[in-house]
C-alpha cells in the first residue's frame, strides 16, 4: 500500500489550510457563492437538498485500517452516523455543516485522506480494480499507475478548469471491474509481444443524458509514456471541448463530433510535440511507487485449508457466502472477500460507524490491514487466509455485513436520488429496496445468477443505469415519479448501453416488472447464459411482452 511521506503530508496540510482560509472568507462575505462554488467543489463540498455533502476521496478505492476508523469517527461526529460509498470508490457524508468542513479536512489529513478534486470541472479520483494486487488475473498492479495519475493530476495547473469533469479508470485484468469503457479515459493494461507493458487507451465513454461507450484511440501506448499521453489528451480537450453548454461539455461529445479517428490524430499531433523527458515520470519514481505496493506478510500456505473446507461443509450459510462473496487469490491458501453493502433493508452503499469500525477490526485481524471500495458500492477484504474465513464470516454476520449477494439481483447500484440530491427527479433507494425485498429468497437469487441492476434518480446517471443489465431511470412526469427500464447494458469488458424497454412504470410496478423479466430469462436461458447473454440472444420482444402484457 502506498504510504504518504513528509511531502505528501505537507501537501495535504497546505491544502487544508488553504480551504480553511477560503471558508473563512466565504463566511465573512468576502467571497460570493458564485466565486466560492468552484473552490468548495474542488474540495468535495456540495450543497444538496438538506445540507452540505462532503465527498471524501479514496484514491483508487484503497483504504487502511486507520483511515476506515477515522471515517467512522467523522460519520459519528459530524454526520448522522453513516457514510455512503459511491461509484467512484469514494465515500460521502450527507449531513455536513460548512463551518465544520475545515475541521473534517484536518481530521482526514491526519490519516492521509482528503477531498481534493472529488467534484468540480477537474480530473476526479482515478478508479481502479478493487482486486488489484490480490488477483492472479492482472497483467500488472494497476495501483502503480493509478498512484502515478493521482500525483500527476493533483492540482494540475493547466487542467484545473476543464470544460467539465474528467474521470479516468485503470484496469489490468481481462475481467473489467472498473467500468473503463464508460470513462472519459479508460486505460487497460496490455502486454506487448516483446513482454513490455502498455495501455489500450479508450476515450469518450460516459453516461449522463448522452451515453457513449469509449473508443480506442491507441491500441498500445508504452506504459512509461503514460503521463505525456494523458497531457496530450487533456490539452486537446481543454482547448477544443465545448464550454457553451454544460450538457455538451464532456469529452465524449468532442470525440463524437470529431470522430474517434480525428480526435486520436489530434492527440498524436499534440503528443509528438511534448517533451517526454519533462512530462513522463522517470523510471526511478515508477520504481519507488511500485515498491510501495509490494504486499508484505503473505504466508506460504497449502492451496486448500482443511479447516475451512470442513466449516463450509457444516455451515450452509458459510457455504452460500463462499459461493457468492469469496474469490480466488493469487497466493495459495488465500481468498478475496467481497463485503456487500446491499442488505435487503439497507441503502445501497451505506455503512454506519459501527460497521466501519467492525470492518477495520476485521481487516486488521484477517486482511493484512487492507480494505478496498468497489465502484459497485461494496467493500473488499483482499487478503484473507482461507482458514480465517469462518471467523471473518461470523464477524461480518454480527454487524449485518455478510449478505451473500455479490453480483446477484439484489446487489444493486443506486444513486442517493431524491432522498438527498438536489438534481434528482425521483427516489432511487426505495426502489432498490423494493427489488431486494422481492428477491429475498436466496436460493432463487442464486438460481438467477449474475444480474446487474442499476438505478439512477435522474438523467445524470450517477447510478449507472445505462450500463445495468436492467437499468432503471427515475423521471418526473407532471410531478409524479416514473421509472423507465432499459435492458442489455453493461459496464464491463463487454460494455454496451441499455435499450429502453417501453413506457415508464410507477414506483410500485418496478419490482414486479423485474420479477417478470427474470421469469422470461429463466424460461429462455440456455446453458450457462447470464440474464445479459439471454437478452442479447433473444432480443427485447419477449421481455417487453411479459412486462406490458396487462396493457394489451
Amino acid at each position, binding site marked *: 500500500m502506498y504510504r504518504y*511521506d*513528509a*511531502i*505528501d503530508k*505537507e*501537501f495535504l496540510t*497546505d*491544502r487544508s*489550510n*488553504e480551504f480553511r482560509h*477560503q471558508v473563512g472568507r466565504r463566511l465573512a462575505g468576502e*467571497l460570493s457563492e458564485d*466565486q466560492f462554488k*468552484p*473552490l468548495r467543489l474542488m474540495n468535495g463540498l456540495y450543497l444538496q437538498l438538506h445540507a452540505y455533502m462532503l465527498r471524501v476521496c479514496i484514491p483508487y478505492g484503497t483504504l487502511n485500517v486507520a483511515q476506515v476508523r477515522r471515517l467512522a469517527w467523522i460519520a459519528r461526529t459530524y454526520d448522522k452516523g453513516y457514510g455512503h460509498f459511491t461509484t467512484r470508490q469514494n465515500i460521502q457524508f450527507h449531513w455536513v455543516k460548512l463551518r465544520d468542513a475545515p475541521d473534517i479536512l484536518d481530521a482526514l489529513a491526519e490519516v492521509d485522506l482528503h477531498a481534493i478534486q472529488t467534484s468540480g*470541472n477537474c480530473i476526479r479520483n482515478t478508479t481502479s480494480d478493487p482486486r488489484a494486487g490480490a488477483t492472479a488475473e492482472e497483467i500488472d498492479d494497476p495501483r502503480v499507475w493509478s498512484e502515478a495519475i493521482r*500525483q*500527476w*493530476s*493533483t*492540482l*494540475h*495547473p*493547466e*487542467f*484545473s*478548469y*476543464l*470544460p467539465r469533469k474528467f474521470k479516468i479508470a485503470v484496469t489490468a485484468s481481462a475481467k473489467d471491474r472498473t467500468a473503463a469503457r464508460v470513462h472519459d479515459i479508460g486505460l487497460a493494461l496490455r502486454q506487448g509481444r516483446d513482454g513490455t507493458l502498455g495501455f489500450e487507451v479508450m476515450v469518450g465513454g460516459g453516461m449522463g443524458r448522452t451515453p457513449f461507450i469509449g473508443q480506442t484511440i491507441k491500441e498500445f501506448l508504452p506504459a512509461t509514456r503514460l*503521463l505525456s499521453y494523458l497531457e496530450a489528451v487533456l*490539452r486537446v480537450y*481543454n*482547448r477544443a471541448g465545448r*464550454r457553451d453548454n454544460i450538457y455538451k461539455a464532456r469529452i465524449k461529445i468532442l470525440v463524437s463530433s470529431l470522430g474517434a479517428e480525428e480526435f486520436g490524430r489530434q492527440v498524436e499531433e499534440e503528443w509528438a*510535440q511534448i*517533451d517526454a523527458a*519533462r*512530462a513522463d*515520470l*522517470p523510471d526511478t*519514481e515508477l520504481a*519507488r511507487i511500485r515498491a510501495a505496493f509490494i504486499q508484505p506478510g503473505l504466508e506460504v500456505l497449502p492451496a486448500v485449508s482443511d479447516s475451512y473446507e470442513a466449516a463450509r461443509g457444516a455451515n450452509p450459510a458459510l457455504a452460500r457466502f463462499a459461493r457468492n462473496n469469496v474469490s480466488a487469490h493469487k497466493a495459495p491458501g488465500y481468498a478475496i472477500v467481497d463485503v456487500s453493502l446491499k442488505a435487503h433493508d439497507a441503502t445501497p452503499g451505506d455503512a454506519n460507524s459501527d460497521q466501519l469500525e467492525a470492518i477495520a477490526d476485521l481487516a486488521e485481524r484477517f486482511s493484512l490491514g487492507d480494505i478496498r471500495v468497489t465502484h459497485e458500492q461494496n467493500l473488499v477484504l483482499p487478503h484473507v487466509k482461507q482458514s480465517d474465513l469462518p471467523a471473518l464470516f461470523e464477524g461480518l454476520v454480527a454487524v449485518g455485513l455478510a449478505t451473500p449477494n455479490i453480483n446477484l439481483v439484489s446487489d444493486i447500484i443506486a444513486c442517493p436520488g431524491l432522498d438527498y440530491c438536489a438534481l434528482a427527479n425521483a427516489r432511487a433507494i426505495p426502489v432498490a429496496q423494493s427489488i431486494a425485498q422481492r428477491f429475498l429468497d436466496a436460493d432463487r437469487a442464486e438460481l438467477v445468477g449474475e444480474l446487474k441492476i442499476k438505478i439512477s434518480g435522474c438523467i445524470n446517471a450517477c447510478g449507472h443505469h445505462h450500463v445495468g443489465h436492467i437499468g432503471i431511470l427515475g423521471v418526473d412526469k407532471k410531478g409524479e415519479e416514473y421509472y423507465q427500464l432499459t435492458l442489455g447494458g453493461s459496464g464491463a469488458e463487454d460494455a454496451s448501453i441499455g435499450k429502453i424497454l417501453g413506457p415508464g412504470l410507477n414506483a410500485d410496478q418496478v419490482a414486479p416488472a423485474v420479477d417478470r423479466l427474470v421469469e422470461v430469462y429463466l424460461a429462455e436461458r440456455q446453458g450457462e447464459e447470464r440474464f445479459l447473454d439471454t437478452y442479447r440472444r433473444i432480443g427485447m420482444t419477449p421481455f417487453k411482452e411479459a412486462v406490458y402484457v396487462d396493457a394489451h
Partner: protein
Amino acid sequence: MSTLIKYTANGATEIENSFVHVVDGEPVPQGADIIVSLGRIKAEGEALLASGVRVGVQIEPAEAVEDLAELLPRLALVAVAFPKFRDGRAYTSATLLRQRLGFNGEVRAVGDVLREQAYVMTRCGIDAFVPADGSSAAEWSRAAGHFRHVYQTAADGRTPAYAEPGRR
C-alpha cells in the same frame, strides 16, 4: 488606472501599468504602449511594431496562441484573457507560450482574474495580473506561494515532488 501585479521568484509587487488596451477599430494612441487583438496584429503588425512603442497582444480563449509564434520575439507581452474565471483555456495558452514557443516576455492575465486562481496561473507561467477582485500584491503572493510542494512539472519550472531530494 488598474492595479498591475508583477510576480517573480521574489514574490509579487504592484507596478504601474503603462499599457493601453486598444479596442479593434479604434485608433492607436500616439506614444503609448499598447495591447491589441490577435486579429489586429495580424492585419497591422508591421506598422504597429515599427512605431517605436512597446506592443502586446491579447489572446482570447478560442484563439490559437501558436498563431503568434513568428511575432513573439518582437512582443513586449502577451495578455491571456479570462472572460470568466472558470474558462481554463488560457492556462493552456500560457503553458504553450512558455514551454513550446519559448516566450520569455511578460504573460499577463486579464479579465475575471481572482486571487483564488493565483496558484494555477503562476504555475502555468503567467507572471503579471490585473486582479478583478481588488487583491493586493501581498495577498496575491500568499495565494500563489501557498503550496510547499507540487506534484507535476509545469511552465513555472518548479521541482515536482518526485524530484525533491526528500522524497521517500
